[in-house]
Every structure is written in structure tokens, then in C-alpha cells.
């Protein structure tokens, strides 16, 4: 009986593996991807990068410019995330099953949040380019919409998870809706929500680089400028700056998370 069970399990995983291989091979055939060529070009890419793509003494002259566009990107990301979080909090309270006012508004706010979440920030940037043109405002709105959608979803989960019992308890003490929200729902979910906001800021700083390429602003634009004009040493300095700043932000937010959770 037990041997049977294990044999069946082995057969299942073997079958699954087989299907995976079949899908991979199928995909290679359909896209006409040449594996050998793909792997062959890898060493060449590395050699090229080592030969050209590194910061030089001269590129350091541009460092203040890079830094100022990096700061612009950081500030836009943080602003977009924090304003997005304020809106997300409102929509999450409306959308959560524990705290919604009624089922109708609940589903409306969830549908809005889903809509915003499922359009990628890059897609938002392209759409918004039509209205705001190439400016950091476009990037700001793209990040804002993306963060709003994602954070609403995350906040709804947080509220449902943390505040079931204490909401019921406060209802029993006769507290009104607003008091329940401020005395129980928000205090219980604040640490997790802050953690989500920090995560979103990190993600947005990464996306902001890409969005800068599209909207012609911030660090993404700076990178694109030097890369396209074949100034590989400066472009690589931009990349190094981005990596260092992301590592820095990550360690700061990890520290904050440790303190509040």
C-alpha cells in the first residue's frame, strides 16, 4: 500500500517533468531559437562588457549630474508610493470584507484596484505619454497608478488577516464604524502596511529606471542618453550608481522592517 503510494508519486513527478521538457522543446521549435548560438554569444557579451563597460576616471566628471537625476528618481518613487498608499488605504478599507460599508461599494473598489494593478507600470507610462508628454509627471503618475493597485490588494489582505476578532470585539462595545477603523483596524495593520509600502518603494525605484527611459526623465533617461551616444564608461557609472543606491535603500528598509515588526 505504502510502496504503491510512493511509486505513484514517482510516476507523477516523472510525468510532470516530461511535460515540462516537451513544452520547452516545443517553445524552442516555434520561436526558432538556436540554443547553441545563444550560449556561444554569452562569453562574447562578457568579454565586451569587461572591455568597454566600466567607469573610467574621466566619467567621474559626470557624477554630480548622475547623482542629481538619481535623486529626482528616488523622490518621484517615494512620492508616488506614499500618495498611492494613502489612496490604497481608503480603497482597501472599502474593499475588505471585514470593514467594507456594503457589498456594492466593496466590489466597486476591488474592481478599480484590480484594473490599476493588472496594467503594468510600463504600460501606464506609455498610455500617459499621450496626455502628459515626456516629463517626470508622466513617470510619477505611472508609478502612482501601479503602486495604488498593488498596495490596495496588499492592504486588503492585511486587514482581513489581522483585524477580524478585534473588530467584532469593538462592535460589541458599541463603537461606531469610524472608531472601529481608527482604534482597531489601522493600529493592528500599520506595521504590515508599512512593510508593504517599503517594499513598494524599492520596487518603484527599480521600475523608475525603466520608466525614465520611456518618459525621458530621471536616471533612466540619463542612462539612455550616454548609452545611445556610445559613452559606455559613463553609462556603466550610472548602472553602478543605481545598484549601490538600491542596495542602500534595501538595507534601510530591512532595518525599518526589523524595528517595526
Amino acid at each position: 500500500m505504502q510502496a504503491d503510494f510512493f511509486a505513484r508519486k514517482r510516476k507523477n513527478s516523472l510525468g510532470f517533468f516530461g511535460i515540462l521538457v516537451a513544452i520547452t522543446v516545443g517553445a524552442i521549435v516555434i520561436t526558432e531559437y538556436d540554443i547553441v548560438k545563444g550560449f556561444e554569444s554569452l562569453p562574447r557579451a562578457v568579454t565586451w562588457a569587461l572591455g568597454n563597460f566600466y567607469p573610467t576616471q574621466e566619467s567621474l566628471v559626470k557624477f554630480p549630474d548622475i547623482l542629481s537625476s538619481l535623486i529626482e528618481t528616488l523622490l518621484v518613487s517615494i512620492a508616488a508610493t506614499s500618495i498611492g498608499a494613502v489612496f490604497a488605504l481608503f480603497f482597501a478599507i472599502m474593499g475588505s470584507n471585514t470593514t467594507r460599508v456594503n457589498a456594492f461599494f466593496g466590489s466597486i473598489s476591488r474592481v478599480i484596484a484590480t484594473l490599476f494593478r493588472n496594467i503594468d507600470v510600463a504600460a501606464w507610462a506609455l498610455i500617459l505619454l499621450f496626455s502628459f508628454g515626456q516629463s517626470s509627471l508622466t513617470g510619477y503618475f505611472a508609478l502612482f497608478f501601479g503602486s495604488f493597485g498593488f498596495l490596495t490588494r496588499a492592504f486588503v489582505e492585511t486587514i482581513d488577516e489581522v483585524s477580524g476578532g478585534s473588530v467584532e470585539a469593538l462592535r460589541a462595545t458599541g463603537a461606531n464604524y469610524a472608531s472601529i477603523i481608527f482604534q482597531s483596524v489601522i493600529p493592528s495593520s500599520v506595521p504590515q502596511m508599512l512593510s508593504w509600502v517599503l517594499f513598494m518603494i524599492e520596487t518603484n525605484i527599480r521600475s523608475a529606471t525603466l520608466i525614465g527611459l520611456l518618459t525621458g526623465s530621471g536616471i533612466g533617461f540619463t542612462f539612455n542618453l550616454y548609452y545611445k551616444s556610445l559613452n559606455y564608461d559613463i553609462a556603466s557609472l550610472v548602472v553602478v550608481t543605481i545598484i549601490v543606491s538600491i542596495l542602500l535603500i534595501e538595507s534601510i528598509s530591512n532595518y525599518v522592517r526589523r524595528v517595526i515588526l
Partner: protein
Amino acid sequence: MASENIIEVQNVTINFEGKIALSSLSFSVKKGERIALIGPSGAGKTTLLNTIATFIKPDEGQILIDELGSSELDDRKKLSRKIGMIRQQFDLVHQLPVVHNVLAGKLGQWGFFKSLWSLIFPQEKSLALRALERVGLKDKLYEKTANLSGGEQQRVALARLLVQSPEIILADEPVASLDPARAEDVLSMLTKLVIEENQTLITSLHSVEYAKKYFTRIIALRDGAVFFDLPVDEIQAENLASLYQLKEHM
């Protein structure tokens, strides 16, 4: 309703998705009684308590609560002066200091702005302090609630009830998640406070021993119906044996 009865449960029936949770349940409770609800898991104890607390509406029958009309039962503010509840999970806000959790008992009477202001500058602090003193946690006023032990958290929930000061207290398995020593400690404190405040208490319990020790009357539920309803000193061993008997052996 006879004037000395504070709760009257009349033919209450509740179905959950076609399954009968309570079937035509009737009993009345006099002011000052301390009732233990016992019975096997799934007998309907929690459902009954939630129904008396008006969180669940009965499908048939009605529950009358001292001097309150049926429309007043929907007014949580008024109801909170009559009925307070305490549960197994304590239901405290762990991120806040103890004082806010205790003062939560006042939220039904405070306006919105006073409640909000109280989060920054605790209002009527002396009230909270007195309540905490009575449950033996005077020095924990500003302690973060999450840092307290299970027994201490349940005593904070008791202090919240003291501040709310309802006439009827419904307790749903208040000691089920505590070890025997803490359980006895919390139960004896709960019943002592209820006697001092001249409140009426209905508690669901798993321990027959505690039920006999701290309560005046035992209502046993089985399959959503009253199995027996007796003063504590009339309970016989055979009553209890048949109450907890497993179905297969019947």
C-alpha cells in the same frame, strides 16, 4: 416578560446552510444569575451566545433583553450598556498599549473625536487605571499589549469589560486557551467581578468542574437543544455522562 427576568430566549431556531444549529431553544435568565453553558463541541454554545449578543439573527423565535424593544436591539450604542462580550481569543489590538484596549470599553459612549483624541492623550485614564488595578495589572498601563502573556491579555479584556460596565456579560470559552492555573485564576476573577458589580453572566465552558465551582446554574446543550437546565447543586453524575457520550455509543 416577568420583571425579574433579564434575558428571555423564546423558541429560537437557527439554521446554517440547511443544518440546524439551534432548534427551538427556550429558557429565561434572572438578574444576577451566573450560568455555565456546557455541552460537546458543535452543540451550539457559541451560536447561542452570538445570538444573544445579536450578532446572529434567529431564523425563528426571538430573544428579549431587559426593557429593550426589538428596534433598540439594533442600536449597538444602547445595547453596549446592556451586553458585553469576552472571547477565547481575547480580541485585543496587540499593537496598542494596554490603556487603549481598556478604554475601548468606553468607545460606545464617546463621540468620534473624543475617541480619536484618546489615542494620543488617553481620556478618563483614572477609569482605566482603576479597572486595571482590580484585575491586578496596575503597572501595565502603557505596556504594549502584544508583550503580555495569555493570562494577562485575558485580564486586560476583563478590564475592558469593567470599563464598559454592561449589565449582562457573555463569555465564549474565556479560558479555553489558558493553562489550568491561569484558567482558574481568570474564571475566579471574572465571577468575583460579576458578583461585585451585580451583573448577570453567561459563560460557555468545557470544564464541568469549573462550571460547578463558579456558577449558580448549568445549561447543557446537545445538538442545538437544551439537554438539561439545572441549578448547580441538583446536577447528577449521570446527567453529565449522557451529555458527553459519543453518538456511536447511544
